[in-house]
């Protein structure tokens, strides 16, 4: 293995150990690194997954960092070539990965502070890594609030997990759906409608949010209105990605590369960029 000349484009093999359906189109995949080593990622980072013969695509790492285990999780929505091929895999199958790549949530900054985690749609996938990291070190952080917004009840993912979190009392959980059906008993409305429901201490609250582009504008505006400073707000920006190395140009946001400068950005650092949000 070590005799191979190095190239950053060469993935390494990992093996699928578990596959769990999360919704009609989203599945969680647990992989094990064949090299036996932990992935050594930070919450918010991503890996490029290779389905050889089909292509390569970036996915957020959904599990918290694990120091002693060589497993990690991603959760994937079936939408195109690579994601569909992933859904066909059976445990035992191998794929290639590169990474972890990109920036992460600055967990050290959150120590001793309140944290508000805002997850729109699939945004819960990367935030889960942060959330469970913090829960593992629960006493290092102050209040934890999780807000989850989904378009329709049937699109909700990690439903049981989120219910357990709510019961545990470690995290205050607020959830909403945009378009309810007859089964839905909870909040209705876009995710911004949850913000007034939590009494936040603006000076002491850090915000981590991931969701569709449109969500950011509104949630950030709400947070700013509440008096939360820009440098306390962290977002993860998704862009088209190919190389993951800051070379291919696809992920550019003005002069930033979402793959190496991001995906996680402090809002202060992107406020001035027209292409960011």
């Amino acid at each position, binding site marked *: 293995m070590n005799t191979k000349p190095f190239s950053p484009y060469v993935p390494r093999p990992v093996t699928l150990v578990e596959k769990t359906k999360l919704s009609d189109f989203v599945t969680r995949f647990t992989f094990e690194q064949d090299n036996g080593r932990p992935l050594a990622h930070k919450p918010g980072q991503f890996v490029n997954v290779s389905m050889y*013969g*089909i*292509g390569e695509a970036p996915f957020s790492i959904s599990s918290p960092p694990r120091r002693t285990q060589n497993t990690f999780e991603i959760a994937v929505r079936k939408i*195109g*070539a690579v994601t*569909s*091929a992933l859904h*066909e895999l059976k445990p035992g199958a191998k794929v290639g990965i590169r990474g972890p790549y990109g920036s992460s949530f600055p967990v050290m900054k959150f120590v001793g502070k309140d944290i508000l985690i805002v997850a729109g749609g699939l945004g819960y996938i990367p935030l889960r890594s942060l959330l469970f990291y913090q829960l593992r070190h629960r006493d290092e952080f102050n209040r934890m609030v999780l807000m989850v917004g989904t378009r329709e009840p049937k699109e909700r993912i990690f439903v049981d997990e989120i219910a357990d979190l709510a019961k545990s009392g470690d995290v205050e959980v607020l959830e909403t759906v945009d378009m309810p059906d007859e089964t839905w008993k909870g909040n209705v409305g876009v995710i911004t409608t949850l913000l007034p429901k939590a009494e936040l201490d603006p000076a002491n609250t850090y915000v981590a949010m991931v969701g569709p582009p449109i969500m950011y504008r509104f949630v950030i505006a709400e947070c700013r209105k509440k008096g939360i400073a820009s440098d306390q707000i962290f977002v993860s920006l998704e862009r088209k990605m190919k190389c993951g190395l800051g070379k291919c140009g696809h992920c550019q946001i003005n002069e930033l590369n979402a793959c190496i400068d991001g995906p996680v950005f402090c809002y202060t650092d992107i406020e001035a960029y027209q292409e960011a949000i």
Partner: protein
Amino acid sequence: MAKPKIAFFDFAGCEGDQLQIANLEERLLDILGHVEVVSFREVATGHSDDYDVAFVEGSITRPEDEIRLKEIRKNAKVLVALGACAAIGGINCLKNFLAENVYREEVYGGQARWFSTYAARPLKSVVKVDAEIPGCPIDPTEFARITKELLLGRSPWIPDFPVCVECKQAGNVCRYEMGRMCLGIITRAGCKAACVSQGAHCWGCRGLVPGANLDAARIVMDRPGTSRKAIQDLLRFFLGDTGAAL
């Protein structure tokens, strides 16, 4: 696992594309080794044949073609339009610009009265087409790649940018810089700019690139020394079924 079944059919066209596939020679054996070819050309109506992939060549030029094509569509899991005629109507659409009696005379001579025929059209104006391998003739290496992608369960990829990209990759001198015309600016790439690389210009055989800026293209083509008629003729040659040809 059972080998996927594939079938080939043709409508109005010159069968040049099946020839291109045959030109793959030993590669063809490897690729076809993964499949079972269940049918060439003839579709048995009535009993429900099933095949995983139907490659269909030629354009639809008669009402009875529609019935046959719909039958194929019903039996196929994946329907692939093979070649310019099937994918974009191709040269057959030239006749759409002629008065009906003129082209009927030309095509069927004295028997013209005996055949029903209507404006030529691509497969996609009759049935849902899952993938296209455009080109006149098709590029056999693209056929090979797309067949493999289908075998791997991937929805086939074809370039969604103009021929100019591949032309620049090839390092050709642009026809416009030589005072000539070229349809590469609005035509879907994938042929490695074959015609320009061979010294000619692009005729548009792979159809319009998605989002082609036709207004701009007409201005670009309308240069001193080029007649409107020449532009019109070029645009009608392969792109007769699109909005490009006026």
